[in-house]
């Protein structure tokens, strides 16, 4: 039996912020009519969380539901629960037009944590990371250096960054460079 591993086997780095690969995270891409009662019910049944509004993220237990576009959500969960989420959605939405697919392994996930985490990410993403603009209920899809990335807060002073699996090493490398010692910005930290 072949054992499942994340892209960088939990690589970590300590600089002015801690950068750590978060290991395997379950992810499901769900597309459909986000306003429909069926969708609200299906998401609730699968995750116990509500359908989020624009650029928002909702959470319940080990599940989170993030708004990706006007017709797309990203559901995160334990890695081994993603197929169950897909099956639950398929059951709830049977007959409706939707697409639910397990994309857990298509992604790499990093946590950037510490008092300087906001400034470290602001070096790479054209996003306002100030406390006033970026709180725990926000998700942003943007660019991190030269690759697409999504980011939200997974705890106080901790940001979860998601990118495609193939660029995990690139993302880790640029995050480490942005977190290098002596590179404090001192604006948001």
């Amino acid at each position, binding site marked *: *039996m*072949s*054992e*499942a*591993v*994340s*892209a960088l086997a939990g690589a970590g780095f300590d600089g002015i912020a801690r950068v750590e690969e978060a290991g*395997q995270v379950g992810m499901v*891409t769900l*597309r*459909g009519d986000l306003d429909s009662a069926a969708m609200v019910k299906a998401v609730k049944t699968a995750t116990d969380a509500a359908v989020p509004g624009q650029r928002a993220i909702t959470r319940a237990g080990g599940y989170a539901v993030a708004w990706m576009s006007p*017709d797309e959500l990203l559901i995160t969960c334990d*890695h081994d629960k993603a197929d169950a989420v897909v099956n639950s959605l398929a059951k709830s939405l049977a007959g409706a*037009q*939707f*697409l639910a*697919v*397990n*994309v*857990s*392994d*298509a*992604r790499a996930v990093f946590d950037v944590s510490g008092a300087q985490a906001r*400034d470290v990410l*602001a*070096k*790479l*993403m*054209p*996003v*306002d990371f*100030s406390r006033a*603009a970026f709180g725990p209920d926000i998700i942003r899809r943007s660019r991190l*250096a*030269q*690759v697409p990335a999504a980011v939200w807060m997974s705890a106080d002073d901790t940001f979860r960054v998601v990118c*495609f*699996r*193939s*660029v*995990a*090493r*690139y993302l880790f*490398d*640029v995050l480490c*460079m*942005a977190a*290098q*010692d*002596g*590179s*404090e*910005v001192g*604006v948001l930290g």
Partner: protein
Amino acid sequence: MSTRLKEGGRRIDRAKQVEFTFNGKRMSGFEGDTLAAALLANDQVMMGRSFKYHRPRGVVASGAEEPNALVNLGEGGKFEPNQRATTTEIFDGLTAASQNHWPSLDFDVGAINAKLSRFLPAGFYYKTFMFPRFAWKHLYEPIVRQSAGLGRVPKDRDADTYEHYYAFFDVVVIGGGVAGLMAAKSAGEAGAKVLLMEQTPHWGGRAPVDGGEVDGKPVEDFVAATVAALEAMGNVTLRTRMMGAGVYDHGYMLGYQRLRDHAPAAKGPRHRLWRIRAGRIVTATGAIERPLSFAGNDVPGVMLASAVRDYVVDYGVSPGDRVVVVTNNDDAYRTAIAVKAAGLSVPAILDARAGGGGALAEEAKAQGIRVLNGMGVAKVHGKKRVEGVAVCRQAGEGAVEEEIGCDVVAMSGGWSPVVHLWSHCGGKLVWNDKYAMFQPNPEASPTGADGEGFVLAAGVAAGAQTDTDFEGLGLYETLRTAVRAGTQAAAELGFKTRDVALPTVSEHDEVAMEPVWLMPQGAGAKLRMKAWLDYQNDVKVSDVQLAAREGYESVEHTKRYTTLGMATDQGKLSNINGLATLANALGEAIPQVGTTTFRPPYTPISMGAIAGEARAETFQPLRRTPMHDWHEENGAHWEPVGQWRRPYCYPRKGESHAAAVAREVMATRDSLGLLDASTLGKLVVKGPDAGKFLDMLYTNMMSTLKPGRCRYGLMCSENGFLIDDGVVARIDEDTFLCHTTTGGAERIHAHMEEWLQTEWWDWQVYVANVTEQYAQIAVVGPNARKVLEKLTDEDISAESLPFMAWKDVTLDGVNSRVYRISFSGELSYEIAVPASVGRAFWGRLLQAGEEYGVTPYGTEALHVMRAEKGFIMIGDETDGTVIPQDLGLNWAISKKKDDYLGKRAQARSFMDNPDRWQLVGLETVDGSALPDGAYAVAEGTNANGQRNVQGRVTSTYFSPTLGKGIAMGLVHKGPDRMGEVLDFPGTDGKTYKAKIVDPVFYDRDGEKQNV
């Protein structure tokens, strides 16, 4: 000589000595010195040679506008040319070298150019293109190349790191002089989130040197108190050593922060480029003093009056013992007073104004300084150092009335507001006739997305205001306009502002300046040829006048013709003097001539800062498959495919790439090969209309495909040209999985989304890109089934899993989807497993395949095998101008469908045309491989006199299977010309002869893949 004064120097710490070298010579300065100040303190007045005539040049200014004192700084990975000594802070171990001289600064061969100046007039460079023609190559080009450039080009990789920072502020204030401080305070007190940046390490700008009192105390105390107040405000961010580099559309601007230039040994990035979104930008960028145009105004020792007093007051440095001041305004009197106060001698002040100066002049006279009104400099004596000046009447032609010995000439032609950042994004200027300067027109500021102005000027950067009883560039006006700008910026963003009480100010009243564009005003040709406008590019008054005589009327044309203002300083000192000279020569008013365009950056910024994190390993994202590390550990020779790296082949020790490819092909054809196919695109298309959608996207029929089966499909653009191909698998009634080429994954995903979102928005289809969810491995060769059977008990026989079918199978406990498809002509399975188990599963296949001599193969073996089978490759057989019909793929074009993307285009007369080049196989008569991209020649020549052609090679390989070269190509009416031999001239001088054959070279009946 220049030297360190016994006392004084606001910015230096005499307790901390700093050692550095200049041209290899050890020197010392104090902490807080700029390199220019420290060089002057070491009696190094001459700091470089000029660009064109290699004339000796000394420092002119004390700040960012410096044109002369450019040095090569640092060594090895820290080397950087063209660094201004006036903005370089010294540190222990700094190494600097002067530029543009050979063999030494003191003795320079290139100075001969000065003797040849008669032959190097304005536009010399352009004139060399014209006459005589042969001279460019043999005479001018070698000379121009030898003379070009100032600093050396760095040879080593930059040893430092750099970064960007995305910032969001309500109000950004550029410039940390008293105006910037006051504007930031006004905006900050209103509640705005404020960023204040200052390019030097110090707050307060010129004010502490220029003097005056605020609220009864020296202005220096006011600066300290304001900085303290700003630091205490949570909504204000202050940064020194950070320059406003550029202002762009919609409130975007760049801040260039030099973090480690003054402390290169410290950890961390060297520069940080701030990419800022601002609601409002306040330019409090101050003003730059103008030189005066008199003969010999470039001799080392001739400096701006403000710079002379900066060196005395800020650094405790005497630029020389005897300072003659020459001016057209009151401000320069401050220099005379400061120099005198430092115990040095001021033999005379030459005031070009017949009426002389005001209160400051009286003060100078009271101190016993001789003031000569209506007088100017006829010429400066000295070559490498000022020795004296010849004094003449400004109104005359230069008849010498008196000789005065001196070693410094402090000149002031008035002040020009720094309008660069105001102008970058389209802010307009107006000419202030009374003060002879261009200043921001607040009625025409740069506008944002809402059509409102988003830049406000403050302090002297705003020019002299007319809406006031006070006038000029004084301290009170500076504070008044700064408060106004800061408050207005906050108010325009919706912050509640209060009236801010202005402090009381005590300062000298000044008499207005009088413009002096040439000194003396009637100077003859001989004097004009030695009166420099642009020091760095060696442009003289006579050059601009010559350009005008030759018909250059536009200031932009004159700039390029004479190179005025085109050096690294971008004409900070020369612009106004130059265009005034042009206006006079043309007999026009200055505002009619106008200015050249101000473009970012304000001063040059480092390449490293622009690149940010994009360097070395992270220059570009490198995409890695789950098996990437295995490939690397096993010696893969990489091929870049988009941003992916794919193994080209796996050469063994001592094995050539060609031999490795041959071994991989033969092992696969004979027994078992493995290919990492993870990079191929995988798009899920789902919905009731998915079949209809794919029928439109592909040329063939996809809606009739049965679940569990696969079909090869072609995709065309709406212009009919092939854009992608791949195998489509029908997963269930509503769901398809479309494989794309490696480079096509993102592109075809976007193509699908575009059609769904813009054209067929009412079709019930969703698409998701699941390319990276799977590791995909091709298991290929006669033993492919046997090895899979070792990993599962499920039925994968030819009956249960026939060619062009797929099946979900548990292989070694892993949920796998097995597609029985072949791009090699062999029995072949492509197995998709979750990416997280990809690397482990690859290992299991290697283990299980060991008894069959399993051989991983790379992209080249893949290419060879597909070519042997006559399969086309997008990007080889296609180049954006090829339609499926050219490739003999008519069988993959549905005749039953009403429409598909490209159908109508393919019916156009020039597409549906027997004259198009068509795909054939090519076989050399001697068995060698054809050169890639070679053309088949035809009889005669075309209208351009070029040999006619009748075809070209699209793919060519040596086939190890067949033991000979094989190729595919597009040939005029090719399929009708089987057996004909064509000539393909190579770039090696040989002509290759190749026979037109069927493109399928191997196993034409497909017996090997269909077992």
